[in-house]
């Protein structure tokens, strides 16, 4: 584990150096617009997230929350607007250039998106195999450490199809953390889970943020979860940010949509 600790501390130092140099927020989204045919999904959204901060993005279904995350990590190109990661505008980046940015980011997909032909252990090892020069035993230690962090250390050899949805999300989270990212993007981490599993995922996210101090963006429908894990909340409606602030700010708001949303959540 000494090697893992060394890697972690050197990565953290690099991260602090880079942010010290640029002084830019971890993620800055400016005037983002995205349409699908005649349907405007994002209509000029601007948001920033600093290191160590967690932003929850809330809104009704189809308001472009997941699209926002996909644009931030470069899986989708916006019609207009800019995305800056640590001050770098990713527009016009090639796939390999985007790869360098993505090494600093972890993404938990809504349905975990685990590789179904690989075991749990191989899924978590995947980013390490491609981006870290490690011996087999170092890699194995790192994977076991990550799976222990998410409470999945006893399921190394299982296939994704053989574990529950909640377990798949935990493994997805371990995979997202494999490269020790600066930025964590979580797409509906508690969707489709029972209240106890949702609570466990929330606790896990809180614990990881406490330990890793990442900038996190959490897309969710679950107001309770958002309130628990986020420092700030942004409520989206018709492609716009209706309100961004703390949960108390939302509670105090006079905006009709905000009141309706809180009432039905």
């Amino acid at each position: 584990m000494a090697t893992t600790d060394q890697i972690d501390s050197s990565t953290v130092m690099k991260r602090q150096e880079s942010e010290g140099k640029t002084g830019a927020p971890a993620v800055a989204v400016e005037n983002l617009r995205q349409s699908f045919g005649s349907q405007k999904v994002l209509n000029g959204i601007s948001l920033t997230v600093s290191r160590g901060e967690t932003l929850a993005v809330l809104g009704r279904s189809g308001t472009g929350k997941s699209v926002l995350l996909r644009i931030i990590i470069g899986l989708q190109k916006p019609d207009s607007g800019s995305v800056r990661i640590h001050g770098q505008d990713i527009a016009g980046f090639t796939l390999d250039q985007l790869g360098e940015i993505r090494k600093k980011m972890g993404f938990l997909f809504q349905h975990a998106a685990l590789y179904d032909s690989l075991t749990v252990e191989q899924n978590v090892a995947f980013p390490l195999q491609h981006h870290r020069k490690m011996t087999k035993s170092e890699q194995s230690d790192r994977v076991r450490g990550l799976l222990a962090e998410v409470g999945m250390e006893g399921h190394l050899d299982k296939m994704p199809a053989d574990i529950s949805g909640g377990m798949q999300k935990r493994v997805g989270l371990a995979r997202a953390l494999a490269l020790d990212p600066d930025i964590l993007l979580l797409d509906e981490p508690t969707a489709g889970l029972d209240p106890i599993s949702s609570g466990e995922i929330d606790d896990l996210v809180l614990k990881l943020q406490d330990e890793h101090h990442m900038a996190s963006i959490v897309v969710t429908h679950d107001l309770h979860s958002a309130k628990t894990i986020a420092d700030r909340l942004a409520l989206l409606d018709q492609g716009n940010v209706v309100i961004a602030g703390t949960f108390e700010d939302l509670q105090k708001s006079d905006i009709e949509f905000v009141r309706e949303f809180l009432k039905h959540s």
Partner: protein
Amino acid sequence: MIDHTVTGVDAPVSQRAKTFIDAPVDFVKHTINGTLEWFGDLGTFFWQVVRAAVTPPFEFRELFRQLDEIGSKSLPLVALAGAATGVVLSLEARYSLTRFGAKSLLPAAIVFSVIHETGPIITGLVVSGRVGAGIGAELASMKVTEQIDAIEASAVNPYRLLAATRILACILMLPLLTLAGDACGLLMGWVTQAMVEPLSLHQFINSGFSGADFNDFLPPTLKTAVFGLIIGLIACFQGMRTQGGAAGVGRAATSSVVLSSLFVILADVVLVKIIIVFFP
């Protein structure tokens, strides 16, 4: 506001005639646009794959896995198809050549038919069926379950990891599979002959290859590398552009097989002509 437009059988004759003409014209326009768009997207995809394939890091581990998946696992099917072709060729050629009094040319007819055309094309079509469907369905399934997005999000280039490795494996394995198919075809061609009248394998090979040289053997075998490129490229392209859940996966698998088989046959026409011109 009431719409007074009359359509269908109640429409005036001039309007019906216009619709009668417009409908096929629109269909042709739509088909041509769709086809050009498909070729354009295929060209862009091919360029992305080439660019990813020639720049490091190289995905050797995945390449070896695909060589096994595409090569070793297609071998029994190719061998069986080759053997069946050898038997049929032997029976047909014996019947025809005996009628024309040229029975002594039987071994040469079988050898030339197998190594020139039936071996390569049968291998191409068998592999496009097995591998084309496999790659198309696998990648399509990965696409609709966001696994390809997850690969990209892990800072790994999916064109390099998924497409380049599969296409390269197809290019490398097709000529080798063709050799295996040819060998089985010739062997079964001899067995079929030997069952009718005594003929040693040595005699069959000596007689069959007596007029053959390197140009009869190498270009037809190597042309299957082009078949491999076609099969791999089309299957990866159809798989990675899939949309729409389980139905999309089904469509990708079907279209991979249909299109790769079709383009293998069309490419064969062109390649045979090129081989005849350059390797007479």
